[in-house]
C-alpha cells in the first residue's frame, strides 16, 4: 500500500509511492450477461428515481388521479366511470410523459457512453437491454403505484353503494348504534320484588326470568273469590227452588181458576147471589194466578242473577289466577337489559316500569342528512350499508325525520332512521358506525355540447354509457390496467428505437408522439383497429364492466406486447450495429 498518495502534493524530486496495481492485485471475474443487465437495470432505475422528470410524472399523475376520483365520488359516479376516466387520462395525457421518460434514456449519458460505460466490459446489447428493462419496469411501477390502489378504491366504493338502480349517497360517520324498538317491562301486579339477579347491560334470552314479585295477597284474594263463587252457586240453587215453587203455585192457581170457571157454567141454575159469589171467586182465582205468575217470573229472574253472580265469581278467580302468573317477570325477547328501575324488596304497584330490554338483533341508527337535496331523494325502504369497525351490515331506511334538529355542533339537519339486523353479533349496541345510504340516481342531466362532441369523437353511444353501470371486478380492472401498461411499454420501446435511430432525443420524442396519434389511422388501415388508443378508450367502459370477450382482450394485449417486442428488438439491433456517438 502506498504510504503517500501518488497524486498528493509533495515536493518535486521526492520518489513517487508505489503504483496502485502493486497492491490488491487479483483476478477479475467477468460478470455474466444477465448479471450485467440486472446491474445496469438497477443503476438506471436508481438514476430515474433521482430524476425530477420521473418524480414529477408520478406526483402529478397521482395528484390528478386522486382529485379526479374524489370529484367523481362526490358526483356519485360508479366505479367503471371513475376508473375509465383515470385510465383514459393515462392513455391520452400521461402517455406523453412516458414518451419523455423513455426519450431521455440515452440523452443524459450519450456523451459519456464510451468513457463511462461501454469501455468497462459491457456490450452494447447488455447496455440497451438494461435500459429497456429499467425504463419498462419503472414505468410499469409508476403507473401501477397509482392505478392499482385507485382501482381497488373505486371497486370498494362501488361495492359499498351499488344497487341495481342506486348510487352512492348520504354518508354519515360515527353514528351511535341504538336499539330498535326497545321493550319496556311494567309490573302487572302489586307487590314487593322478591328476587332479581340482573343488572343493566346483561344479555337475556326470550322467556328468561327477570324478577319475582311477592304474590301472597293474590292467593288470599283467590281464596275469597273461590268462596264467593261457592256462595253464588248456592244462591243459584235457592233461586231455582224458588222458581220451581212459584211455577207450582201458578199451576195450582190455574187449576183453581179452571174450577171457578166451571162453577160458573151453570149460572142459570144458580141464584143471583151464588152467581155473584162464584163470579167473585173467579176474579179472586184470576188474581191469584196473576200473582203466582209474577212470583214465578221474579223467581226466574233471581236464578239469572244468581247465575251471573257465579260467572262473575269465576271470572274473578280467572283474573286473579292470571295476575298470579305476572308475579314471575320474564323477558319477552332476547336482548340486553338497558334499564333496571327497581331493586329487590322494593314495592312495585301495577304499571311500575321495571326494565327496558333492547332486542338482541335489531338496531337502529339516527343518521343526520345535512344535504337537503339528498334528503329529498331519501325514501323509506332504501338500502343502507353500515360499517362497524370494518364489518359491514346491510339495512334499510325505516323512518325519515323531516324536522331539522341541531347536532352538538349546532348544525341543522334532517335525519333518517336506519334499521339493520346484527346477524346475532354481540356487542354492537352503543358502538359508532359509518352509514352509507343508497339513493336513487339523480335525474340525468342533459350532456352539454362538449360532452356530446367528445362522445361522438370517441364513438360512444348512449348504450355504451349506460352499459357502464355494470360492476367492476378486480379481474377486469387488472385486464384494463395491463392494457394501459402494455401501451406504455409499446411507447417506451418505440421511443427508445427512435432515439437509437435518430440519436437525437427531441426528434425521437416528437416522432414518437406523432406516431402515437397517427397510429389510430395506421392500425385502422392495418386491420387492427382494436389496437388504436381511441378504440381502447371507446371500449374501456365495456372492458371495465366485463361485458367483452376475455379472449379478444387478451389477444389485443398480446398484439400490443408483440409490437413492443418488435420495437425493442429493432432498437437493440440498431444499437448494436451502429457505433455509439464519437
Amino acid at each position: 500500500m502506498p504510504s503517500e498518495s501518488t497524486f498528493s502534493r509533495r515536493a518535486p524530486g521526492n520518489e513517487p509511492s508505489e503504483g496502485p496495481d502493486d497492491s490488491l492485485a487479483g483476478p477479475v471475474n467477468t460478470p455474466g450477461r444477465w448479471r450485467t443487465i440486472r446491474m445496469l437495470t438497477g443503476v438506471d432505475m436508481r438514476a430515474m428515481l433521482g430524476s425530477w422528470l420521473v418524480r414529477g410524472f408520478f406526483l402529478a399523475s397521482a395528484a390528478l388521479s386522486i382529485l379526479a376520483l374524489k370529484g367523481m365520488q362526490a358526483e356519485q359516479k360508479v366505479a367503471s366511470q371513475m376508473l375509465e376516466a383515470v385510465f383514459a387520462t393515462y392513455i391520452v395525457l400521461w402517455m406523453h410523459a412516458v414518451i419523455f421518460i423513455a426519450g431521455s434514456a440515452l440523452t443524459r449519458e450519450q456523451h459519456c457512453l464510451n468513457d463511462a460505460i461501454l469501455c468497462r466490459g459491457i456490450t452494447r446489447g447488455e447496455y440497451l437491454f438494461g435500459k429497456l428493462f429499467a425504463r419498462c419496469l419503472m414505468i410499469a411501477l409508476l403507473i401501477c403505484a397509482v392505478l392499482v390502489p385507485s382501482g381497488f378504491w373505486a371497486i370498494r366504493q362501488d361495492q359499498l353503494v351499488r344497487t341495481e338502480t342506486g348510487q352512492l349517497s348520504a354518508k354519515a360517520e360515527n353514528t351511535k348504534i341504538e336499539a330498535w324498538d326497545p321493550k319496556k317491562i311494567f309490573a302487572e301486579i302489586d307487590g314487593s320484588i322478591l328476587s332479581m339477579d340482573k343488572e343493566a347491560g346483561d344479555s337475556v334470552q326470550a322467556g328468561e326470568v327477570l324478577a319475582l314479585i311477592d304474590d301472597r295477597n293474590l292467593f288470599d284474594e283467590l281464596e275469597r273469590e273461590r268462596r264467593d263463587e261457592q256462595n253464588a252457586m248456592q244462591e243459584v240453587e235457592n233461586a231455582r227452588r224458588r222458581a220451581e215453587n212459584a211455577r207450582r203455585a201458578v199451576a195450582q192457581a190455574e187449576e183453581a181458576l179452571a174450577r171457578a170457571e166451571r162453577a160458573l157454567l151453570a149460572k142459570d141454575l144458580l141464584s143471583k147471589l151464588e152467581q155473584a159469589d162464584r163470579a167473585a171467586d173467579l176474579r179472586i182465582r184470576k188474581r191469584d194466578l196473576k200473582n203466582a205468575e209474577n212470583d214465578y217470573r221474579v223467581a226466574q229472574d233471581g236464578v239469572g242473577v244468581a247465575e251471573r253472580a257465579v260467572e262473575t265469581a269465576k271470572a274473578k278467580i280467572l283474573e286473579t289466577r292470571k295476575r298470579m302468573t305476572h308475579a314471575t317477570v320474564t323477558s319477552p325477547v332476547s336482548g340486553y337489559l338497558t334499564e333496571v328501575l327497581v331493586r329487590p324488596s322494593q314495592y312495585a304497584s301495577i304499571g311500575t316500569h321495571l326494565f327496558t330490554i333492547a332486542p338482541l338483533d335489531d338496531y337502529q341508527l339516527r343518521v343526520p342528512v345535512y344535504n337537503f337535496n339528498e334528503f329529498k331523494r331519501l325514501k323509506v325502504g332504501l338500502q343502507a350499508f353500515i360499517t362497524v369497525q370494518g364489518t359491514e351490515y346491510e339495512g334499510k331506511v325505516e323512518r325519515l325525520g323531516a324536522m331539522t334538529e341541531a347536532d352538538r355542533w349546532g348544525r341543522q339537519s334532517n335525519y333518517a332512521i336506519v334499521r339493520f339486523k346484527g346477524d346475532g353479533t354481540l356487542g354492537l349496541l352503543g358502538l359508532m358506525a359509518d352509514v352509507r345510504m343508497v339513493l336513487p340516481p339523480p335525474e340525468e342531466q342533459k350532456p352539454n355540447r362538449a360532452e356530446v362532441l367528445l362522445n361522438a369523437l370517441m364513438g360512444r353511444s348512449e348504450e355504451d354509457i349506460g352499459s357502464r353501470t355494470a360492476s367492476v371486478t378486480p379481474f377486469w380492472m387488472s385486464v384494463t390496467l395491463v392494457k394501459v401498461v402494455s401501451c406504455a411499454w409499446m411507447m417506451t420501446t418505440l421511443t427508445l428505437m427512435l432515439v437509437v435511430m435518430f440519436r437525437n432525443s427531441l426528434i425521437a420524442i416528437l416522432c414518437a408522439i406523432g406516431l402515437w396519434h397517427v397510429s389510430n389511422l395506421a392500425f385502422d388501415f392495418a386491420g387492427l383497429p382494436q389496437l388504436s388508443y381511441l378504440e381502447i378508450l371507446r371500449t374501456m367502459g365495456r372492458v371495465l364492466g366485463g361485458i367483452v370477450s376475455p379472449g379478444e382482450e387478451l389477444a389485443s394485449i398480446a398484439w400490443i406486447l408483440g409490437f413492443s417486442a418488435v420495437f425493442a428488438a429493432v432498437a437493440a439491433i440498431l444499437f448494436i450495429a451502429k457505433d455509439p456517438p464519437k
Partner: protein
Amino acid sequence: MNPPAIRFERVTKVYQNRQVALADVSFEVPAGATVGLLGANGSGKSTSIGIALGLVTPSAGHVEVLGQPMTPGAKATRQRLGFLSDDPSFPKDLNAIQYLDFVGRCYGLPRLEQKARMGTLLRTVGLTDDASRRIGTYSTGMKTRLGVAASLMNHPEMLFWDEPTAGLDPISRMQTLDLLEKFRGNKTVVLSSHILGDIDRVCDRLIILNKGQLLFDGPRAELENMLPHRVLDIRANGSLDAFRADIEARMGRKIFSHEPGRIRIELDSTDVVGEVTGQLLELARAHDVTISGINSIGRQLEDAYLKLITEDEFRGFERVSSP
C-alpha cells in the same frame, strides 16, 4: 514468442461515408511496451484507440487485442483493458465513490476487493477528500484523475490513456508520468498525447498517424536516427520565402520547418557550424533579411515528428505507391 498485444491489420474506418478516420493502417504493439500514439488533431488516434477497445467497429481490416479478435461483443477481452478518454465524461450526478463502485460492478469485482481497490485508487489519485462531492463540480484535472482511477479499477493488462496529462497542473502531470514509468514492462500502455515531452519521457515505442495514415511505427530510437546530426534553428525577419529558396538552391540544405519567422536546416556530422552560419549571414544580407538568432541544437523528438509530418505534407500522390 509472445503474441503482440495489439495487432492492426489493414484497418480502415470511414464514419458514415463522410469522414475517413483511418486508411489502411497496419501495426503491432508488442506486449509490455509503452507506446506513444502521436498525431495531429483528426489524425485518427482516438479512432484507433476506439477500435482497439471495441467501441468502434472498423469498416475494413482485422484487429486483435491480447491475442483475441476485438469486436463490440468481446466482453471478456475488454474486461482486461483500462481506458482513459481525452475528454473524460462521467455521470454528473454521482460522486467519485459511486462512480468507482459502478465501474467495479461493471467489471464484476468482488464486493470487498472493490471497496479496498476504490479506497486505494482514490488515495493514489488524490481524490480522497473530494470523493463525496458530485462529479459535476470537479475541475478538469480532477476529472482526469478520476478517469485514471477508473481505468485502473480492474487491474488491466493493457492501458489506453488518451491525453492523460491534459488539464493537469505540473506536479500532477509529473506524478502521472511517474506512474506510467512504474507500469513499464508490467503492462502494455498506449499513450496518446500532443505533449511530445511526455511521450519522450515514458515511451519506448512510437506510432505516428497523420490524416488517418500510419507514418511511423517502431522504437523511438529509430525515429530519432532519422534526424540529422544537428539542426540550425534560425530566427529571422524579412522576406523569408526567397531566402528559404536560396538556402535550398545555393546551399543544398533541406528546410523542414516552415513556421513564420523560423527556419530549421539540417547539419551533417561533417558540417562546421561556423562555416554554415557565415554562408547564411551572407545570403541574409543579399535578401535583406535580419537574423535575430541562430541556435545549434541536437536531436529532438519534436524535430523528428515535425520532419515526418512536413515530409508527409509534401508527398502528395506518392502516398498511393508507398508501402
